């Protein structure tokens, strides 16, 4: 269960993702952005950070890194891809996920613990969670304000492609619980086929008790478990 972690100049959560995959029982390996092959990886993680300094727009330059052709092709073939924080921004810029991540409505960099509601279980990424489970994990971004045009948003909701929504402790997706102005409190979505996930909060920073939360670990366990089942099948 080899899981490729793409490292761009400016990535800073690649090691968090490496540790997450290890703890979930997978075999992580770093793939430098100038590589052109994923080296037979079974799944891909695009980690958080500030790839290429986030110049122009977050993810805008990273999407043209040489490795991204392989990542795009992998996703199109149905391979599992997870983009976390900056990784989500990269996947949107690359057209692998719909919409865009705008500057936070508050204009401030948000760096704090947040709550997420699991909107759908049984996916490749959420099989380790319960329906409507409330998760706690950190978020850390300036541009996490999810936007898509009304038509796209309706399709995302109709097809149940919002996997995570910002919520309060009780699980209400209220305006107060929305840290960045994201439409419909969207924190994480999948593509139409369901094999590409993008999310702003950091499950990779919630994998050990010492970090204050272990709510992110089941996501990596779901991912590793899905890959393992595919290998058996």
């Amino acid at each position, binding site marked *: 269960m080899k899981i490729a972690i793409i490292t761009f100049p400016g990535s800073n959560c690649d090691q968090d993702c490496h540790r997450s995959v290890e703890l979930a029982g997978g075999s992580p390996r770093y793939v430098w952005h100038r590589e052109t092959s994923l080296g037979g990886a079974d799944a891909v993680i695009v980690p958080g950070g500030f790839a290429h300094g986030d110049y122009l727009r977050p993810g805008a330059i990273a999407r043209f890194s040489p490795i991204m052709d392989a990542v795009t092709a992998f996703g199109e073939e149905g391979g599992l891809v997870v983009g976390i924080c900056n990784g989500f921004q990269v996947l949107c810029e690359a057209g692998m996920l719909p919409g*865009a991540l705008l500057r936070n409505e508050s204009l401030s960099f948000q760096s704090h613990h947040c709550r997420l509601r699991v909107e759908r279980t049984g996916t490749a990424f959420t099989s380790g969670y319960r329906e409507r489970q409330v998760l706690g994990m950190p978020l850390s971004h300036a541009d996490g304000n999810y*936007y898509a045009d009304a038509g796209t948003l309706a399709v995302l909701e109709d097809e149940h492609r919002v996997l995570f929504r910002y919520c309060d402790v009780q699980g209400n997706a209220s305006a107060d619980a929305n840290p960045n102005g994201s439409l419909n409190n969207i924190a994480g979505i999948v593509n139409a086929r369901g094999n590409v996930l993008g999310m702003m909060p950091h499950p990779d920073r919630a994998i050990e008790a010492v970090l204050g939360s272990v709510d992110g670990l089941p996501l990596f366990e779901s991912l590793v478990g899905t890959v393992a089942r595919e290998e058996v099948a």
Partner: protein
Amino acid sequence: MSRFKVEVLVTPRPGLLDPQGKAIHHALSSLGYDAVEDVRVGKAIYLEVAAATPEDARERAEEMCRKLLANPVTEDFRITAAEADGAAP
């Protein structure tokens, strides 16, 4: 081949929330500029492009906008091109 100065203006699409514009609008209002009804913030990108004609330079810039300089989901762009040695944009 001539050298053209190309100015690319990238602006948030109409109707899209522009928190920077909102913050500036608020600041202007508190300075007493009550006549300001709306503020939108974009960015200007200046390119120097070698091309045969201004149309050619503009076409190249348009391609760059579609590919990289603007995000079609959230941004519009406007391009002006002028000979580099002439009046600068």
